[in-house]
């Protein structure tokens, strides 16, 4: 293990590099950009869950004063886009049919927002309503209306992954547990809704967009606009949160670009909150049937898992999310026999796709709920049961994940210990002053996560350029997308550490497809790990160059030089040196005018077989455990989470303060998923499409959070770091669910856990006893 105390920039609790810009209100998000001559666009959405488009007549809209252009599905030429070619099923604007309420049909550009909205009412669309299906059961029934003509029974992807011999495993087991679980549909709710601004400039389309991956977005735009990617430049300004919801191209991106071309004017399209809730991507709700075989002593033998996912009207990333569930099932706990069956099903609901956790949350809710029941019924301590089966370093999972570092056992022990302390204290303090005493419960859950993966491309690469400036400052050019998680800060810390300079010397230019090198985007918890390694490579390249210059001046061998606190010197002889700035300046002000730029890229060494879906999808795996303590009012069913302890194996925390921020933010999101959040649908219509009806936790809902970082120093990670942003969310809702189970003695198998569900469960329990 490296001596962390020797680091001067990494491992430190530094403020975000752009924190000052953000607290002063200077930070420019896409909506804060106003380009001269800018038009405002708006999107016409389908009022039907399923209908054939017979005709679109925009003539009345075009005649409306102030309207400049209208685009419709015809302008897409039917080009479908998406990550994987064989799963592409969606055009940027609907062509033949609309498949959900909110599906994009047309867009207008006008002089202002009022005019644009008025013009939408003047576009005459003739629909032929078709029968629609809103549940996976209805959708899979023989003879159900087909949502996509080429897909039978509306099942867009079926997976069957047998590993070992699951039936033999069950036969050998002492006990069999079987249950069904259900997770709900939740919304990402970034505070900044989706927004796009496009302008034509010098033969290029320039698009500013609230995106998690400008290079991905450029690829989809290039595909749908039928333009070479060099004709498109995507710039990511400040982004107000994404959580997976800003990974894919939106109709707004496409329409802004196309309307800008048509009008030769800049066009801005902002989704309002209602559109954000009812017509953008959301989490994939799953029905999970789980069967587990276990020995008397708690050793897991076999698991069978069947997942039915409501994919909504189009694939999005849904099929990959189902597949990701299989990996997750086999990564956290060990067992030799597994059968996974997954179905991604089309319905006439809005599209479900990527969201922080990518399928893992759903699976872990089911799996860790079942572990809890197993522990209770076998009479084994739930923590011990987990520790008995927990993943250990150096193992390979059934799905082929090669686990190098793994701190999951320590994470579980830590949350059990700390959570247990709280528990004891709480019990001492609790009195019976109510009519019925409040019920307290304690629950634990685990998670594992990738650090980037190669599911979508042949590579999972990121590249970086490190420019050394004459004044001794350093500018990092990275395509990695800071969407608020603080990646610019972490990447700058890595560069500053490598170059021996101060954090204040760093500047970061992040995410512009023309001026920064390639990166696939913020997803798969890949940025710290993949982009981190890329910027390290670039920093090392720059360091080599600057040391060569210094070596010449100092008449030393560059291999003998080091940089510390902006001072380049011979190791062991600090007086034989020069400033970092002097060396950079000397290089430039020499006869060859050398401008030092380091370049580097990183592509994780992984091997994934898309046919078997097995392999080592990631070059490192992170782990986490959380414990929750709750108080349940048996009279009202109300739940209060009293405290939450989180322990994460993040490899190495480059910025512990930012890492804690990820954990704390996850806890609030996980709390929402456990207790409050649920997109309510009526015949395909999102009923609660506002923050007043769809409640995310506010400050007063938050429990105290205690974070522990377990540092395992991964050999492949930048200074040992692994990904963390998504995993932190995964165990929160199962931990809370398990705590409620502990408190009331009945397990609630569907999310969110509402007071009504608790009261019903308690009533049933009373009836049984």
């Amino acid at each position: 293990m490296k001596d962390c105390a020797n680091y001067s920039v990494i491992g430190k609790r530094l403020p975000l590099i752009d924190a000052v810009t953000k607290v002063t209100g200077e930070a420019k998000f896409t909506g804060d950009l106003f380009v001269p001559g800018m038009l405002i666009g708006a999107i016409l959405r389908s009022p039907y869950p399923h209908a054939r488009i017979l005709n679109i007549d925009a003539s009345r809209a075009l005649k409306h004063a102030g309207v400049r252009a209208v685009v419709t599905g015809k302008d897409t030429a039917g080009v479908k886009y998406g990550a994987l070619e064989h799963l592409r099923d969606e055009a940027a604007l609907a062509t033949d049919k609309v498949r959900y309420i909110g599906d994009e049909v047309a867009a207008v550009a006008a002089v202002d927002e009022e005019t644009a909205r008025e013009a939408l009412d003047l576009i005459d669309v003739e629909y032929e309503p078709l029968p629609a299906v809103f549940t996976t059961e209805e959708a899979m029934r023989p003879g159900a209306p087909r949502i996509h003509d080429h897909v039978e029974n509306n099942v867009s992807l079926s997976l069957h992954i047998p590993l070992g011999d699951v039936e033999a495993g069950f036969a050998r087991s002492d006990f069999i547990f079987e249950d069904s679980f259900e997770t709900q549909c939740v919304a990402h709710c970034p505070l900044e809704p989706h927004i796009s601004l496009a302008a034509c400039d010098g033969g290029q389309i320039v698009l500013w967009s609230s995106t998690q991956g400008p290079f991905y977005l450029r690829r989809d735009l290039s595909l749908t606009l039928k333009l070479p990617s060099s004709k498109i430049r995507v710039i990511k300004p400040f982004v107000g949160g994404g959580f997976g919801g800003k990974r894919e191209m939106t109709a707004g991106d496409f329409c802004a670009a196309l309307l800008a071309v048509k009008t030769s004017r800049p066009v801005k399209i902002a989704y309002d909150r209602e559109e954000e809730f009812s017509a953008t991507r959301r989490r994939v709700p799953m029905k999970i049937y789980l069967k587990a075989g276990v020995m008397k002593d708690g050793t897991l033998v076999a698991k069978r898992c069947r997942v039915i996912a409501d994919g909504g009207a189009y694939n999005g990333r849904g099929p990959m999310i189902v597949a990701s569930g299989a990996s997750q099932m086999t990564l956290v706990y060990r067992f030799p026999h597994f059968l996974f069956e997954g179905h991604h099903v089309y319905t006439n609901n809005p599209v479900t796709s990527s969201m922080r956790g990518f399928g893992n949350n759903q699976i872990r809710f089911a799996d860790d709920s079942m572990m809890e029941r197993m522990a209770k019924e076998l009479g084994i301590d739930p923590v011990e049961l987990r520790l008995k089966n927990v993943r250990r370093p150096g193992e390979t999972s059934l799905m082929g994940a090669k686990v190098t570092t793994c701190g999951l056992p320590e994470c579980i022990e830590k949350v059990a210990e700390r959570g247990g302390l709280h528990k004891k204290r709480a019990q001492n303090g609790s009195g019976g002053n109510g009519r019925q005493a409040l019920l307290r419960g304690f629950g634990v859950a685990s998670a594992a996560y990738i650090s980037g993966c190669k599911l979508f491309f042949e590579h999972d690469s990121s590249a970086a350029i490190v420019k050394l400036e004459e004044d001794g400052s350093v500018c990092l050019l990275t395509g990695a997308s800071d969407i608020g998680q603080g990646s610019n800060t972490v990447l700058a810390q890595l560069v500053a550490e490598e170059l021996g300079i101060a954090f204040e010397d760093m500047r970061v230019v992040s995410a512009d497809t023309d001026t920064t090198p390639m990166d696939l985007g913020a997803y798969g918890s890949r940025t710290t790990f993949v982009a981190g390694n890329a910027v390290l490579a670039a920093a090392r390249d720059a360091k080599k160059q600057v040391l060569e210059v210094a070596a010449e001046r100092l008449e030393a061998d560059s291999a003998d030089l080091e940089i510390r606190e902006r001072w380049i010197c011979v190791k062991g002889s600090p007086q034989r040196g020069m400033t970092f700035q002097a060396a950079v300046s000397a290089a430039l002000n020499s006869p060859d005018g050398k401008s030092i730029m380091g370049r580097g890229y990183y592509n994780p060494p992984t091997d994934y077989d898309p046919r078997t879906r097995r392999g080592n999808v990631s070059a490192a795996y992170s782990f986490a455990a959380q414990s929750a303590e709750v108080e349940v009012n048996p009279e009202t069913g109300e739940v209060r989470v009293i405290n939450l302890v989180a322990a994460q194996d993040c490899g190495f925390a480059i910025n512990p303060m930012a890492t804690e921020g990820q954990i704390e933010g996850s806890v609030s999101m996980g709390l929402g998923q456990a207790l409050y959040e649920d997109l309510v649908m009526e015949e395909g219509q999102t009923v609660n499409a506002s923050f007043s009806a769809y409640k995310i936790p506010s400050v007063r809902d938050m429990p105290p959070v205690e974070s522990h970082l377990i540092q395992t120093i991964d050999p492949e990670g930048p200074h040992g770091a692994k990904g963390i942003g998504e995993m932190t969310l995964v165990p929160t809702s199962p931990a809370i669910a398990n705590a409620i189970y502990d408190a009331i003695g009945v397990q609630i198998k569907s999310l969110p856990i509402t007071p009504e569900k608790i009261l019903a469960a308690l009533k049933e329990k009373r009836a049984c006893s």
Partner: protein
Amino acid sequence: MKQSLELTVNGQSHELLVDPHRTLLEVLREQLGLTGAKEGCNLGDCGSCTVLLDGKPFLSCLVLAVEAQGREILTIEGLSQNGKLHPIQESFVQHGAVQCGFCTPGMILSAKALLDRNPRPTEAEVKEALSGNLCRCTGYVKIVEAIMETAKT
């Protein structure tokens, strides 16, 4: 029909011609170029557009610009003086209370309204003061810490 009005924002007065259905948020952002107040929901639910009117927190998406006349309007742009951050801003920076930054201006102004009235609030009072400002990134933990810490100094 546009109406002429005078708005006092961050101590400066502005004469403007404004449609009466324009909200203060729209006028601040689109006519005065003060984009620190954000449009997160435009229905008064998220608090990203919070500004102070005569020291009290208001949702600028639910205030007609014509009705903001004659009041002292403070936006996030008016908080730091001569390039020096306000102590609440400084504390947000130091305590990691900022992630994406979209809710931050509103959060800070809600905190300012509280601390100006109640310089030594309890944690419960801080939470109450922030209850109208949603954040999806931070889980609020470091935001509350940052404000409690400001109140100590």
